[in-house]
Protein backbone atom coordinates (compact mmCIF):
# COMPACT_ATOMS: atom_id res chain seq x y z
CA UNK A 1 0.00 0.00 0.00
CA UNK A 2 2.66 2.48 1.00
CA UNK A 3 5.22 3.88 -1.37
CA UNK A 4 4.29 5.03 -4.84
CA UNK A 5 3.25 8.52 -5.74
CA UNK A 6 0.87 10.14 -3.35
CA UNK A 7 1.27 13.88 -3.09
CA UNK A 8 4.27 15.80 -4.37
CA UNK A 9 4.62 19.47 -3.52
CA UNK A 10 7.39 21.32 -5.32
CA UNK A 11 8.70 24.76 -4.27
CA UNK A 12 5.27 26.03 -3.36
CA UNK A 13 4.82 29.70 -2.49
CA UNK A 14 1.49 31.02 -1.32
CA UNK A 15 0.97 34.73 -0.81
CA UNK A 16 -2.01 35.96 1.16
CA UNK A 17 -2.51 39.47 2.43
CA UNK A 18 -0.87 39.10 5.81
CA UNK A 19 0.67 35.71 5.47
CA UNK A 20 2.74 33.64 3.13
CA UNK A 21 4.05 30.12 2.82
CA UNK A 22 7.62 29.88 1.59
CA UNK A 23 9.15 27.28 -0.59
CA UNK A 24 7.24 24.26 0.64
CA UNK A 25 8.56 20.91 -0.58
CA UNK A 26 6.83 17.75 0.58
CA UNK A 27 6.45 14.19 -0.59
CA UNK A 28 3.63 12.20 0.90
CA UNK A 29 3.71 8.55 -0.11
CA UNK A 30 0.59 6.79 -1.33
CA UNK A 31 -1.29 5.49 1.71
CA UNK A 32 0.85 7.40 4.18
CA UNK A 33 -0.48 9.17 7.27
CA UNK A 34 1.43 12.42 7.20
CA UNK A 35 1.29 15.00 9.96
CA UNK A 36 2.15 18.68 9.63
CA UNK A 37 3.08 19.96 13.05
CA UNK A 38 3.41 23.61 13.91
CA UNK A 39 2.35 26.33 16.31
CA UNK A 40 -0.88 28.24 15.81
CA UNK A 41 -0.42 30.82 13.07
CA UNK A 42 2.24 28.94 11.13
CA UNK A 43 -0.10 28.56 8.17
CA UNK A 44 -1.08 24.93 8.54
CA UNK A 45 -4.63 25.58 7.40
CA UNK A 46 -3.40 27.69 4.48
CA UNK A 47 -1.18 24.83 3.39
CA UNK A 48 -4.07 22.37 3.43
CA UNK A 49 -6.38 24.81 1.67
CA UNK A 50 -3.77 25.33 -1.03
CA UNK A 51 -3.41 21.59 -1.55
CA UNK A 52 -7.22 21.43 -1.83
CA UNK A 53 -7.19 24.20 -4.46
CA UNK A 54 -8.84 26.87 -2.34
CA UNK A 55 -5.88 29.24 -2.67
CA UNK A 56 -3.94 29.71 -5.87
CA UNK A 57 -0.18 29.47 -5.21
CA UNK A 58 2.09 32.19 -6.54
CA UNK A 59 4.69 29.65 -7.57
CA UNK A 60 5.29 25.94 -7.40
CA UNK A 61 3.45 22.80 -8.31
CA UNK A 62 1.19 20.29 -6.63
CA UNK A 63 1.01 16.75 -8.03
CA UNK A 64 -1.56 14.17 -7.01
CA UNK A 65 -0.69 10.61 -8.01
CA UNK A 66 1.69 12.05 -10.59
CA UNK A 67 -0.92 14.36 -12.12
CA UNK A 68 -0.26 18.10 -11.96
CA UNK A 69 -3.33 19.64 -10.29
CA UNK A 70 -1.85 23.07 -9.55
CA UNK A 71 -4.34 24.78 -11.87
CA UNK A 72 -7.29 22.46 -11.26
CA UNK A 73 -10.28 23.89 -9.35
CA UNK A 74 -11.06 22.23 -5.99
CA UNK A 75 -14.04 20.32 -7.36
CA UNK A 76 -11.86 18.42 -9.81
CA UNK A 77 -9.18 17.35 -7.33
CA UNK A 78 -11.05 14.62 -5.46
CA UNK A 79 -9.71 15.66 -2.07
CA UNK A 80 -11.64 15.14 1.17
CA UNK A 81 -11.40 18.03 3.65
CA UNK A 82 -12.32 18.10 7.32
CA UNK A 83 -12.16 21.48 9.07
CA UNK A 84 -11.46 22.00 12.73
CA UNK A 85 -15.02 23.28 13.22
CA UNK A 86 -16.32 20.45 10.96
CA UNK A 87 -18.22 22.90 8.69
CA UNK A 88 -21.28 20.68 8.41
CA UNK A 89 -24.06 22.15 6.26
CA UNK A 90 -26.60 23.30 8.86
CA UNK A 91 -29.51 23.25 6.40
CA UNK A 92 -29.05 19.57 5.55
CA UNK A 93 -29.56 16.46 7.65
CA UNK A 94 -26.59 14.27 8.51
CA UNK A 95 -27.57 12.00 5.62
CA UNK A 96 -27.84 15.04 3.32
CA UNK A 97 -24.38 16.16 4.37
CA UNK A 98 -22.83 12.78 3.66
CA UNK A 99 -24.66 12.39 0.34
CA UNK A 100 -23.67 15.90 -0.83
CA UNK A 101 -20.57 14.81 -2.73
CA UNK A 102 -22.23 11.67 -4.10
CA UNK A 103 -25.22 13.58 -5.53
CA UNK A 104 -22.83 15.93 -7.32
CA UNK A 105 -21.30 12.91 -8.98
CA UNK A 106 -24.67 11.96 -10.39
CA UNK A 107 -24.87 8.63 -8.59
CA UNK A 108 -28.10 6.69 -8.56
CA UNK A 109 -30.16 6.62 -5.40
CA UNK A 110 -29.28 2.97 -4.85
CA UNK A 111 -25.53 3.57 -5.08
CA UNK A 112 -25.77 6.55 -2.75
CA UNK A 113 -27.68 4.51 -0.17
CA UNK A 114 -25.16 1.72 -0.40
CA UNK A 115 -22.09 3.93 -0.01
CA UNK A 116 -23.70 5.88 2.78
CA UNK A 117 -24.54 2.69 4.67
CA UNK A 118 -20.97 1.43 4.31
CA UNK A 119 -19.29 4.61 5.54
CA UNK A 120 -21.80 5.05 8.37
CA UNK A 121 -21.08 1.53 9.54
CA UNK A 122 -17.33 2.17 9.41
CA UNK A 123 -17.71 5.30 11.53
CA UNK A 124 -20.52 4.05 13.75
CA UNK A 125 -22.94 6.85 12.88
CA UNK A 126 -25.89 4.88 11.45
CA UNK A 127 -28.13 6.13 14.25
CA UNK A 128 -27.37 9.79 13.46
CA UNK A 129 -28.36 9.89 9.80
CA UNK A 130 -31.75 11.59 10.28
CA UNK A 131 -30.42 14.17 12.77
CA UNK A 132 -29.49 17.78 11.95
CA UNK A 133 -25.92 18.96 12.55
CA UNK A 134 -26.96 21.42 15.25
CA UNK A 135 -27.97 18.57 17.56
CA UNK A 136 -24.69 16.63 17.37
CA UNK A 137 -21.95 16.53 19.99
CA UNK A 138 -18.40 17.45 18.96
CA UNK A 139 -17.34 13.83 18.55
CA UNK A 140 -20.43 12.99 16.51
CA UNK A 141 -20.03 16.03 14.27
CA UNK A 142 -16.41 15.03 13.72
CA UNK A 143 -17.43 11.56 12.55
CA UNK A 144 -20.06 12.98 10.23
CA UNK A 145 -17.53 15.39 8.72
CA UNK A 146 -15.14 12.47 8.22
CA UNK A 147 -17.86 10.38 6.61
CA UNK A 148 -18.73 13.23 4.25
CA UNK A 149 -15.07 13.64 3.26
CA UNK A 150 -14.44 9.91 2.81
CA UNK A 151 -17.64 8.64 1.24
CA UNK A 152 -16.75 9.61 -2.32
CA UNK A 153 -13.41 7.82 -2.15
CA UNK A 154 -11.00 10.77 -2.16
CA UNK A 155 -7.44 10.46 -3.43
CA UNK A 156 -6.28 12.40 -0.41
CA UNK A 157 -7.82 13.24 2.95
CA UNK A 158 -6.94 16.57 4.58
CA UNK A 159 -7.59 16.99 8.30
CA UNK A 160 -7.33 20.47 9.80
CA UNK A 161 -6.74 20.16 13.55
CA UNK A 162 -9.37 17.43 13.75
CA UNK A 163 -8.99 16.84 17.49
CA UNK A 164 -8.40 20.26 18.94
CA UNK A 165 -12.07 21.21 19.32
CA UNK A 166 -12.89 18.04 21.29
CA UNK A 167 -12.85 17.57 25.04
CA UNK A 168 -10.02 15.37 26.32
CA UNK A 169 -12.09 12.20 26.80
CA UNK A 170 -13.62 12.29 23.33
CA UNK A 171 -10.28 13.21 21.88
CA UNK A 172 -8.53 10.01 22.77
CA UNK A 173 -11.31 7.93 21.25
CA UNK A 174 -11.42 9.95 18.03
CA UNK A 175 -7.64 9.79 17.74
CA UNK A 176 -7.73 5.97 17.87
CA UNK A 177 -10.61 6.06 15.44
CA UNK A 178 -8.58 8.09 12.94
CA UNK A 179 -5.80 5.50 13.14
CA UNK A 180 -8.24 2.63 12.66
CA UNK A 181 -10.01 4.25 9.71
CA UNK A 182 -6.70 4.95 8.06
CA UNK A 183 -5.64 1.34 8.49
CA UNK A 184 -8.93 0.09 7.06
CA UNK A 185 -9.24 2.43 4.10
CA UNK A 186 -5.59 3.22 3.44
CA UNK A 187 -6.48 6.73 2.26
CA UNK A 188 -3.43 8.98 1.93
CA UNK A 189 -3.89 11.48 4.74
CA UNK A 190 -2.39 14.84 5.64
CA UNK A 191 -3.27 15.94 9.16
CA UNK A 192 -2.25 19.24 10.69
CA UNK A 193 -1.94 19.81 14.40
CA UNK A 194 -0.07 21.81 17.03
CA UNK A 195 -0.05 18.84 19.41
CA UNK A 196 3.12 16.80 19.37
CA UNK A 197 1.70 13.71 21.04
CA UNK A 198 -1.13 13.62 18.53
CA UNK A 199 1.45 13.81 15.77
CA UNK A 200 3.49 10.99 17.28
CA UNK A 201 0.47 8.78 17.84
CA UNK A 202 -0.84 9.07 14.28
CA UNK A 203 1.91 10.13 11.94
CA UNK A 204 4.05 7.82 9.85
CA UNK A 205 6.07 10.94 9.27
CA UNK A 206 5.94 14.50 10.56
CA UNK A 207 6.80 17.82 8.93
CA UNK A 208 7.45 20.71 11.31
CA UNK A 209 6.20 24.09 10.11
CA UNK A 210 7.71 27.21 11.62
CA UNK A 211 6.23 30.66 11.81
CA UNK A 212 8.53 33.62 11.17
CA UNK A 213 7.96 37.34 11.06
CA UNK A 214 8.93 39.25 7.96
CA UNK A 215 8.58 42.99 8.07
CA UNK A 216 6.12 44.65 10.39
CA UNK A 217 2.85 42.93 9.75
CA UNK A 218 3.61 40.00 7.51
CA UNK A 219 4.25 36.50 8.78
CA UNK A 220 5.47 33.50 6.90
CA UNK A 221 5.55 29.75 7.38
CA UNK A 222 8.26 27.39 6.24
CA UNK A 223 9.03 23.74 6.79
CA UNK A 224 12.08 23.19 8.97
CA UNK A 225 12.19 19.42 9.38
CA UNK A 226 10.58 16.32 7.93
CA UNK A 227 11.06 12.89 9.47
CA UNK A 228 9.65 10.06 11.52
CA UNK A 229 8.30 11.00 14.96
CA UNK A 230 11.41 9.45 16.44
CA UNK A 231 13.67 11.65 14.26
CA UNK A 232 11.82 14.76 15.29
CA UNK A 233 12.17 14.38 19.04
CA UNK A 234 15.45 12.52 19.20
CA UNK A 235 17.24 14.54 16.55
CA UNK A 236 15.57 17.93 16.22
CA UNK A 237 17.04 19.76 13.23
CA UNK A 238 17.34 23.09 15.01
CA UNK A 239 16.61 25.11 18.09
CA UNK A 240 13.02 25.85 17.02
CA UNK A 241 12.08 22.18 16.65
CA UNK A 242 13.80 21.31 19.91
CA UNK A 243 11.94 24.04 21.78
CA UNK A 244 8.62 23.33 20.15
CA UNK A 245 8.80 19.62 20.83
CA UNK A 246 10.30 20.16 24.28
CA UNK A 247 12.19 17.63 26.36
CA UNK A 248 10.14 14.48 26.57
CA UNK A 249 10.14 10.84 27.42
CA UNK A 250 8.19 9.19 24.64
CA UNK A 251 8.27 5.46 24.06
CA UNK A 252 6.56 2.87 21.96
CA UNK A 253 5.14 0.03 23.97
CA UNK A 254 2.47 -2.55 24.33
CA UNK A 255 -0.32 -2.35 26.89
CA UNK A 256 -0.58 -5.85 28.33
CA UNK A 257 -2.46 -7.02 31.38
CA UNK A 258 -4.52 -5.15 33.92
CA UNK A 259 -3.45 -5.53 37.51
CA UNK A 260 -5.21 -3.98 40.48
CA UNK A 261 -6.45 -0.89 38.65
CA UNK A 262 -3.23 -0.46 36.70
CA UNK A 263 -2.26 -1.56 33.24
CA UNK A 264 1.18 -2.95 32.67
CA UNK A 265 2.86 -1.51 29.61
CA UNK A 266 5.91 -3.19 28.23
CA UNK A 267 8.61 -0.93 26.78
CA UNK A 268 11.07 -3.35 25.14
CA UNK A 269 11.10 -5.59 28.20
CA UNK A 270 10.78 -2.89 30.87
CA UNK A 271 7.37 -3.17 32.45
CA UNK A 272 5.77 -0.01 33.79
CA UNK A 273 2.43 0.59 35.47
CA UNK A 274 0.06 3.10 33.96
CA UNK A 275 -3.58 4.15 34.25
CA UNK A 276 -5.32 3.63 30.92
CA UNK A 277 -8.12 1.79 29.19
CA UNK A 278 -6.10 1.20 26.05
CA UNK A 279 -4.76 -2.17 24.95
CA UNK A 280 -2.28 -3.32 22.36
CA UNK A 281 0.39 -1.13 20.72
CA UNK A 282 0.51 2.29 22.36
CA UNK A 283 2.74 5.28 22.93
CA UNK A 284 3.76 6.26 26.42
CA UNK A 285 5.00 9.58 27.69
CA UNK A 286 6.25 10.70 31.09
CA UNK A 287 7.04 14.35 31.72
CA UNK A 288 10.62 14.89 32.94
CA UNK A 289 9.36 16.87 35.95
CA UNK A 290 7.23 13.92 37.11
CA UNK A 291 10.26 11.69 37.66
CA UNK A 292 11.91 11.66 41.08
CA UNK A 293 15.62 10.97 41.07
CA UNK A 294 17.80 9.89 44.02
CA UNK A 295 20.98 8.08 44.87
CA UNK A 296 19.31 5.73 47.36
CA UNK A 297 16.43 3.34 46.59
CA UNK A 298 13.21 5.32 46.99
CA UNK A 299 10.58 4.43 49.52
CA UNK A 300 7.61 6.11 48.01
CA UNK A 301 4.14 5.25 46.88
CA UNK A 302 5.20 5.54 43.24
CA UNK A 303 4.43 2.32 41.37
CA UNK A 304 7.31 2.65 39.00
CA UNK A 305 10.79 2.50 40.53
CA UNK A 306 13.87 1.58 38.54
CA UNK A 307 17.62 1.62 38.79
CA UNK A 308 19.75 3.08 36.03
CA UNK A 309 22.96 4.76 35.07
CA UNK A 310 23.37 8.45 34.30
CA UNK A 311 24.35 8.88 30.66
CA UNK A 312 23.99 12.61 30.30
CA UNK A 313 23.52 15.82 32.27
CA UNK A 314 22.40 19.02 30.66
CA UNK A 315 22.64 22.11 32.78
CA UNK A 316 20.03 24.77 31.94
CA UNK A 317 20.56 27.41 34.57
CA UNK A 318 18.10 26.97 37.44
CA UNK A 319 17.19 23.47 36.30
CA UNK A 320 19.01 20.50 34.83
CA UNK A 321 18.00 17.54 32.70
CA UNK A 322 19.53 14.24 33.70
CA UNK A 323 19.32 11.31 31.29
CA UNK A 324 19.18 7.95 33.04
CA UNK A 325 19.60 4.73 31.06
CA UNK A 326 17.46 1.95 32.55
CA UNK A 327 17.15 1.12 29.51
CA UNK A 328 15.35 2.85 27.83
CA UNK A 329 16.63 6.35 28.55
CA UNK A 330 14.52 8.51 30.84
CA UNK A 331 15.08 12.25 31.01
CA UNK A 332 14.43 13.67 34.47
CA UNK A 333 14.21 17.30 35.45
CA UNK A 334 15.78 18.37 38.74
CA UNK A 335 16.69 21.70 40.25
CA UNK A 336 20.22 22.90 40.06
CA UNK A 337 20.41 22.71 43.81
CA UNK A 338 19.54 18.99 43.89
CA UNK A 339 22.07 18.42 41.14
CA UNK A 340 24.76 19.95 43.32
CA UNK A 341 23.60 18.37 46.60
CA UNK A 342 23.46 14.86 45.12
CA UNK A 343 26.80 15.42 43.38
CA UNK A 344 25.53 13.65 40.28
CA UNK A 345 28.06 12.61 37.64
CA UNK A 346 27.83 10.72 34.41
CA UNK A 347 28.19 6.97 34.87
CA UNK A 348 26.78 7.11 38.40
CA UNK A 349 24.11 4.62 39.40
CA UNK A 350 20.83 6.21 40.54
CA UNK A 351 17.20 5.39 41.26
CA UNK A 352 14.22 6.91 39.53
CA UNK A 353 10.54 6.71 40.38
CA UNK A 354 7.25 8.01 38.99
CA UNK A 355 3.60 7.41 39.70
CA UNK A 356 1.41 5.27 37.49
CA UNK A 357 -0.87 8.30 37.06
CA UNK A 358 2.06 10.32 35.67
CA UNK A 359 2.30 7.95 32.71
CA UNK A 360 0.33 9.20 29.75
CA UNK A 361 -0.66 6.41 27.38
CA UNK A 362 -1.88 7.35 23.89
Amino acid at each position, binding site marked *: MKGGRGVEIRSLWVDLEEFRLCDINLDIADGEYFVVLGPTGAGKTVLL*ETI*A*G*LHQPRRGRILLAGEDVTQA*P*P*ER*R*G*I*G*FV*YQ*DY*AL*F*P*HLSVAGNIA*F*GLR*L*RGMSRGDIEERMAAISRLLGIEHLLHRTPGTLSGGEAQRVALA*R*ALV*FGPRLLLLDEPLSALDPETREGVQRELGRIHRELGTTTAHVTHDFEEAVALGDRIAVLKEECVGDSKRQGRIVQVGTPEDIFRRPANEFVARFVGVRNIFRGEALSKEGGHTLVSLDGLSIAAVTELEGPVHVSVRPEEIVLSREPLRSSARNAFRGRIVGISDRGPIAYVTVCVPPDFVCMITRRSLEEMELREGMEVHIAFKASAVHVF
Partner: protein
Amino acid sequence: MRALFANRMRTSFVFLGSLLILFVAWPLLRTVSASSLTMLWQTLLDEEVRRSIGLTFYASFVATAIAFVCGVPLAYLLARTDFPGKRVVEGIIDVPIVVPHSAAGIALLMAFGRRALLGRAFRLLGLKFISALPGIVIAMLFVSLSFLVNAARQGFEGVNPRLERVARTLGASPWRTFWGVSFPLAWRSILSGMILMWARGLSEFGAVVILAYHPMVAPVLLYERFESYGLNYARPIATLMILICLATFVTLRLVGGWRRA
Protein backbone atom coordinates in the same frame (compact mmCIF):
# COMPACT_ATOMS: atom_id res chain seq x y z
CA MET B 1 -41.30 44.20 33.56
CA ARG B 2 -39.93 45.11 36.97
CA ALA B 3 -36.58 45.93 35.39
CA LEU B 4 -38.31 48.78 33.54
CA PHE B 5 -39.01 50.61 36.78
CA ALA B 6 -35.97 49.50 38.74
CA ASN B 7 -34.96 53.03 39.64
CA ARG B 8 -35.99 56.63 39.09
CA MET B 9 -33.84 57.12 36.07
CA ARG B 10 -35.42 54.14 34.32
CA THR B 11 -38.90 55.35 35.24
CA SER B 12 -38.23 58.70 33.61
CA PHE B 13 -36.78 56.96 30.55
CA VAL B 14 -39.96 54.90 30.33
CA PHE B 15 -41.99 58.12 30.34
CA LEU B 16 -39.88 59.77 27.63
CA GLY B 17 -39.84 56.68 25.42
CA SER B 18 -43.58 56.23 25.77
CA LEU B 19 -44.15 59.70 24.29
CA LEU B 20 -42.49 58.61 21.08
CA ILE B 21 -44.37 55.32 20.92
CA LEU B 22 -47.67 57.15 21.40
CA PHE B 23 -46.70 59.67 18.76
CA VAL B 24 -46.49 56.86 16.20
CA ALA B 25 -49.29 54.64 17.42
CA TRP B 26 -51.96 57.24 18.21
CA PRO B 27 -52.44 58.77 14.73
CA LEU B 28 -52.46 55.31 13.17
CA LEU B 29 -55.01 54.10 15.68
CA ARG B 30 -57.17 57.21 15.19
CA THR B 31 -57.19 56.73 11.44
CA VAL B 32 -58.02 53.05 11.59
CA SER B 33 -60.71 53.44 14.26
CA ALA B 34 -62.37 56.39 12.52
CA SER B 35 -63.28 54.31 9.47
CA SER B 36 -66.18 51.94 9.91
CA LEU B 37 -66.11 48.49 8.32
CA THR B 38 -68.90 49.41 5.93
CA MET B 39 -66.94 52.42 4.78
CA LEU B 40 -63.86 50.29 4.18
CA TRP B 41 -65.95 47.80 2.29
CA GLN B 42 -67.41 50.51 0.11
CA THR B 43 -63.95 51.85 -0.60
CA LEU B 44 -62.88 48.39 -1.63
CA LEU B 45 -65.84 48.23 -4.02
CA ASP B 46 -64.58 51.39 -5.70
CA GLU B 47 -63.11 50.23 -9.00
CA GLU B 48 -60.51 52.98 -9.08
CA VAL B 49 -59.25 52.19 -5.59
CA ARG B 50 -58.96 48.49 -6.31
CA ARG B 51 -57.14 49.07 -9.58
CA SER B 52 -54.79 51.47 -7.86
CA ILE B 53 -53.98 49.10 -5.00
CA GLY B 54 -53.47 46.24 -7.46
CA LEU B 55 -51.16 48.41 -9.55
CA THR B 56 -49.16 49.41 -6.46
CA PHE B 57 -48.69 45.79 -5.38
CA TYR B 58 -47.76 44.69 -8.84
CA ALA B 59 -45.28 47.51 -9.54
CA SER B 60 -43.56 47.03 -6.20
CA PHE B 61 -43.40 43.30 -6.84
CA VAL B 62 -41.73 43.83 -10.22
CA ALA B 63 -39.25 46.28 -8.64
CA THR B 64 -38.45 43.70 -5.94
CA ALA B 65 -37.97 40.99 -8.56
CA ILE B 66 -35.53 43.17 -10.52
CA ALA B 67 -33.62 43.99 -7.33
CA PHE B 68 -33.55 40.28 -6.48
CA VAL B 69 -32.00 39.30 -9.80
CA CYS B 70 -29.27 41.96 -9.74
CA GLY B 71 -29.07 42.75 -6.04
CA VAL B 72 -28.49 39.26 -4.63
CA PRO B 73 -25.33 38.72 -6.70
CA LEU B 74 -24.15 42.20 -5.73
CA ALA B 75 -24.84 41.45 -2.06
CA TYR B 76 -22.85 38.23 -2.34
CA LEU B 77 -19.87 40.07 -3.81
CA LEU B 78 -20.01 42.71 -1.10
CA ALA B 79 -20.14 40.02 1.59
CA ARG B 80 -17.34 37.88 0.22
CA THR B 81 -14.79 40.04 -1.53
CA ASP B 82 -12.68 43.12 -1.07
CA PHE B 83 -12.01 45.25 -4.09
CA PRO B 84 -10.85 48.78 -4.79
CA GLY B 85 -13.81 51.12 -4.68
CA LYS B 86 -15.88 48.85 -2.48
CA ARG B 87 -16.68 51.77 -0.18
CA VAL B 88 -17.97 53.74 -3.15
CA VAL B 89 -20.24 50.88 -4.21
CA GLU B 90 -21.54 50.57 -0.65
CA GLY B 91 -22.15 54.31 -0.61
CA ILE B 92 -24.08 54.23 -3.88
CA ILE B 93 -26.31 51.45 -2.54
CA ASP B 94 -27.14 53.57 0.51
CA VAL B 95 -27.62 56.89 -1.31
CA PRO B 96 -31.34 56.31 -2.08
CA ILE B 97 -32.01 56.19 1.67
CA VAL B 98 -30.65 59.69 2.21
CA VAL B 99 -31.73 61.68 -0.86
CA PRO B 100 -35.18 63.29 -0.82
CA HIS B 101 -37.42 61.02 -2.84
CA SER B 102 -38.79 63.80 -4.98
CA ALA B 103 -35.18 64.61 -5.89
CA ALA B 104 -34.72 60.94 -6.76
CA GLY B 105 -37.72 61.29 -9.05
CA ILE B 106 -36.14 64.27 -10.80
CA ALA B 107 -32.88 62.36 -11.18
CA LEU B 108 -34.67 59.43 -12.76
CA LEU B 109 -36.48 61.81 -15.05
CA MET B 110 -33.11 63.17 -16.18
CA ALA B 111 -32.01 59.66 -17.17
CA PHE B 112 -35.22 57.98 -18.33
CA GLY B 113 -37.22 60.98 -19.60
CA ARG B 114 -38.47 61.24 -23.16
CA ARG B 115 -35.42 63.14 -24.35
CA ALA B 116 -32.86 61.43 -22.11
CA LEU B 117 -30.45 58.87 -23.52
CA LEU B 118 -31.71 55.83 -21.61
CA GLY B 119 -35.29 56.93 -22.11
CA ARG B 120 -34.82 56.98 -25.88
CA ALA B 121 -32.93 53.69 -25.89
CA PHE B 122 -35.70 51.92 -23.98
CA ARG B 123 -38.31 53.53 -26.18
CA LEU B 124 -36.82 51.56 -29.10
CA LEU B 125 -37.61 48.44 -27.04
CA GLY B 126 -41.16 49.71 -26.57
CA LEU B 127 -40.71 50.74 -22.94
CA LYS B 128 -41.78 54.20 -21.88
CA PHE B 129 -41.33 55.49 -18.39
CA ILE B 130 -43.25 58.72 -18.20
CA SER B 131 -46.83 58.23 -17.02
CA ALA B 132 -46.53 54.47 -17.37
CA LEU B 133 -46.00 51.37 -15.28
CA PRO B 134 -42.23 51.11 -16.01
CA GLY B 135 -41.80 54.60 -14.57
CA ILE B 136 -43.52 53.55 -11.35
CA VAL B 137 -41.35 50.43 -11.19
CA ILE B 138 -38.04 52.28 -11.57
CA ALA B 139 -39.11 54.90 -9.03
CA MET B 140 -39.91 52.18 -6.48
CA LEU B 141 -36.76 50.26 -7.37
CA PHE B 142 -34.56 53.30 -6.88
CA VAL B 143 -35.83 54.22 -3.45
CA SER B 144 -36.08 50.72 -1.95
CA LEU B 145 -33.26 48.57 -3.39
CA SER B 146 -30.94 49.36 -0.46
CA PHE B 147 -33.17 47.37 1.85
CA LEU B 148 -32.87 44.19 -0.18
CA VAL B 149 -29.15 44.50 -0.94
CA ASN B 150 -28.20 45.23 2.66
CA ALA B 151 -30.34 42.43 4.08
CA ALA B 152 -29.01 39.91 1.57
CA ARG B 153 -25.47 41.01 2.27
CA GLN B 154 -25.96 40.45 5.99
CA GLY B 155 -27.38 37.05 5.18
CA PHE B 156 -24.35 36.04 3.14
CA GLU B 157 -21.97 37.43 5.75
CA GLY B 158 -23.61 35.08 8.24
CA VAL B 159 -22.67 32.04 6.15
CA ASN B 160 -19.35 30.52 7.25
CA PRO B 161 -17.03 30.68 4.20
CA ARG B 162 -15.71 27.27 5.19
CA LEU B 163 -19.06 25.76 4.26
CA GLU B 164 -18.55 27.01 0.72
CA ARG B 165 -14.97 25.75 0.66
CA VAL B 166 -15.98 22.30 1.86
CA ALA B 167 -18.69 22.19 -0.82
CA ARG B 168 -16.05 22.94 -3.44
CA THR B 169 -13.80 20.11 -2.23
CA LEU B 170 -16.80 17.77 -2.29
CA GLY B 171 -17.15 18.42 -6.01
CA ALA B 172 -19.45 21.44 -6.32
CA SER B 173 -18.71 24.09 -8.94
CA PRO B 174 -18.93 27.73 -7.80
CA TRP B 175 -22.51 27.90 -9.16
CA ARG B 176 -23.58 24.71 -7.41
CA THR B 177 -21.96 25.90 -4.20
CA PHE B 178 -23.92 29.15 -4.41
CA TRP B 179 -27.29 27.53 -5.06
CA GLY B 180 -26.73 24.53 -2.80
CA VAL B 181 -25.08 26.19 0.20
CA SER B 182 -24.76 29.99 0.27
CA PHE B 183 -28.22 30.88 -1.06
CA PRO B 184 -30.30 28.49 1.07
CA LEU B 185 -28.41 29.56 4.17
CA ALA B 186 -28.90 33.28 3.43
CA TRP B 187 -32.45 32.81 2.21
CA ARG B 188 -34.25 33.99 5.33
CA SER B 189 -32.34 37.26 5.34
CA ILE B 190 -32.95 37.68 1.64
CA LEU B 191 -36.65 36.99 2.09
CA SER B 192 -37.03 39.51 4.89
CA GLY B 193 -35.11 42.00 2.74
CA MET B 194 -37.55 41.36 -0.08
CA ILE B 195 -40.58 41.88 2.14
CA LEU B 196 -39.10 45.09 3.52
CA MET B 197 -38.27 46.34 0.05
CA TRP B 198 -41.71 45.46 -1.27
CA ALA B 199 -43.42 47.27 1.61
CA ARG B 200 -41.17 50.29 1.12
CA GLY B 201 -42.03 50.32 -2.59
CA LEU B 202 -45.76 50.22 -1.85
CA SER B 203 -45.60 53.36 0.21
CA GLU B 204 -43.47 55.39 -2.21
CA PHE B 205 -45.00 58.71 -3.20
CA GLY B 206 -42.38 61.35 -3.96
CA ALA B 207 -40.37 59.65 -6.69
CA VAL B 208 -43.39 57.99 -8.27
CA VAL B 209 -45.45 61.15 -8.51
CA ILE B 210 -42.77 62.90 -10.53
CA LEU B 211 -42.38 60.13 -13.10
CA ALA B 212 -45.96 58.93 -13.26
CA TYR B 213 -48.91 60.78 -11.74
CA HIS B 214 -51.00 58.50 -13.87
CA PRO B 215 -51.64 55.59 -13.67
CA MET B 216 -52.21 56.32 -10.02
CA VAL B 217 -50.59 54.20 -7.35
CA ALA B 218 -52.39 54.08 -4.01
CA PRO B 219 -50.36 56.82 -2.27
CA VAL B 220 -50.97 59.16 -5.23
CA LEU B 221 -54.67 58.32 -5.35
CA LEU B 222 -54.85 59.01 -1.63
CA TYR B 223 -53.22 62.39 -2.14
CA GLU B 224 -55.52 63.24 -5.00
CA ARG B 225 -58.68 62.32 -3.07
CA PHE B 226 -57.46 64.41 -0.17
CA GLU B 227 -56.75 67.40 -2.40
CA SER B 228 -59.98 67.16 -4.36
CA TYR B 229 -62.54 65.87 -1.85
CA GLY B 230 -61.03 66.28 1.59
CA LEU B 231 -60.23 64.19 4.62
CA ASN B 232 -63.33 62.03 4.72
CA TYR B 233 -62.68 60.63 1.27
CA ALA B 234 -58.99 60.14 1.77
CA ARG B 235 -59.23 58.42 5.15
CA PRO B 236 -60.62 55.01 4.11
CA ILE B 237 -57.84 54.61 1.56
CA ALA B 238 -55.30 55.62 4.17
CA THR B 239 -56.78 53.05 6.53
CA LEU B 240 -56.54 50.32 3.91
CA MET B 241 -52.92 51.18 3.16
CA ILE B 242 -52.01 51.24 6.83
CA LEU B 243 -53.64 47.87 7.45
CA ILE B 244 -51.94 46.29 4.44
CA CYS B 245 -48.52 47.64 5.41
CA LEU B 246 -48.98 46.58 9.02
CA ALA B 247 -49.82 43.07 7.85
CA THR B 248 -46.62 42.89 5.77
CA PHE B 249 -44.64 44.31 8.62
CA VAL B 250 -45.93 41.72 11.07
CA THR B 251 -45.09 39.01 8.55
CA LEU B 252 -41.61 40.43 8.28
CA ARG B 253 -41.12 40.36 12.03
CA LEU B 254 -42.31 36.77 12.12
CA VAL B 255 -39.86 35.80 9.39
CA GLY B 256 -37.13 37.62 11.31
CA GLY B 257 -38.01 35.98 14.61
CA TRP B 258 -38.04 32.61 12.95
CA ARG B 259 -34.54 33.33 11.66
CA ARG B 260 -33.22 34.16 15.10
CA ALA B 261 -34.75 30.98 16.54
